[in-house]
């Protein structure tokens, strides 16, 4: 099951040139780009692990692409997303966030049902991948 989180997630995966163009757009707006990765995708897992610091003083997309390649090399089968943070006073939040790498195979989620008190039925989602220990998923 394809993970759809962030912008562009219903489109086919962006190519490197398209990613570069998006980064260029972020930089012209003065947003700081950062990279995050995870092997525990979940709708509620918003904050992934940071790969390096947010890149505040970079002028050209090439610098960020280098960092992205380095991240891909380190985590070849993790989800990686690229965030663009707008530091303008009063905004100070993410303006754009999209997935730039996903594992080859995404097993998806299982819907777990739990019997509660009375006849209450609770539901929860769990990624199949998380049945494996960390770093052995995907």
């Amino acid at each position, binding site marked *: 099951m394809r993970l759809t989180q962030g912008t562009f997630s219903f489109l086919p995966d962006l190519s490197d040139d398209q990613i570069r163009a998006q980064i260029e757009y972020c930089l012209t707006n003065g947003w700081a780009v950062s990279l995050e990765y995870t092997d525990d995708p979940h709708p509620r897992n918003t904050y992934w692990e940071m790969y390096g610091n947010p*890149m505040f*003083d*970079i*002028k*050209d*997309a*090439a*610098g*960020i692409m*280098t*960092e992205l390649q380095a991240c891909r090399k380190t985590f070849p089968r993790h989800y990686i997303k690229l965030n663009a943070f707008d530091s303008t006073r009063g905004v100070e939040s993410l303006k754009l966030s999209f997935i730039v790498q996903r594992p080859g195979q995404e097993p998806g989620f299982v819907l777990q049902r739990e019997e509660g008190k009375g006849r209450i039925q609770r539901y929860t989602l769990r990624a199949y991948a998380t049945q494996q220990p960390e770093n052995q998923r995907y």
Partner: protein
Amino acid sequence: MPANETSLQAPEAESRIDIDAVLRESRVEEVLERLERELIGLRPVKTRIKEIAALLLVDKLRGKFGLSAGPPSLHMCFTGNPGTGKTTVALRMAEILHVLGYSRKGHLVAVTRDDLVGQYIGHTAPKTREVLKRAMGGVLFIDEAYYLYKPENERDYGQEAIEILLQVMENQRDDLVVILAGYKDRMQRFFESNPGLSSRIAHHIDFPDYNGEELFEIAELMLTDMQYQLNEEARRALVEYITLRRGQPHFANARSIRNALDRTRLRHANRLFANRGGVLTREDLVTISAEDIRASRVFLSSGEGKRHES
């Protein structure tokens, strides 16, 4: 081969490129003209910059016909005595490369050893990468590059920085232009111990010392920028000052001139202050007179070789 040749000729037959139009379109002429106007002397430097500009332009034209030779290597090494304009030209270089469309952003990141080399094991690589990332799309200017390599300390981490630098210089040529700068003899020794670096730099440009007339022109240009002017007397005094100062030790070309002018401004201001009472005109405020220059210690100690400039 023949197939290749026809493909070369095909577009040429139908379209011809007007070189004047291309020149006008790219603002190259304008930038080169400014270079000529604002940088005094430096003949070999200007020649090389013009050559590079021509090459990039021709490459662009060739691109229109589908001819490509790959991006040229534009890493440079500026050598020369102190105050010969290495940093100024590097800044200008970033702009020129940007106008020519070679560097995408045209910014200059100026660093020294401290910004590249770390203090502990594993500290250097991230530091160097960080700087390289910042410089991408522009020009990385490494001032006094020979400090990167310290042969007397075998545990020095400079070598690590050089290796990362080399790798990026080789693989990401179109993302980054590296300019090394330093004094000539030291750079030579630095390259001797790092032959790989020397061979990856295509342009070794030597900055000559300025002669007396050039220094005077530079002084005039600086004064115009600062909105001062010299009267006839002061003009003569300045020529004399330059001759004397050049003969003294620790002469740093244009930088010495700038310092001298700064001190002259001090004396000028002081003189105006000293004879209060009178009324000052705009003329007084902008005109530097001979006594401001002749008060310099250079005139007192001519020939003695005083250590301090004043």
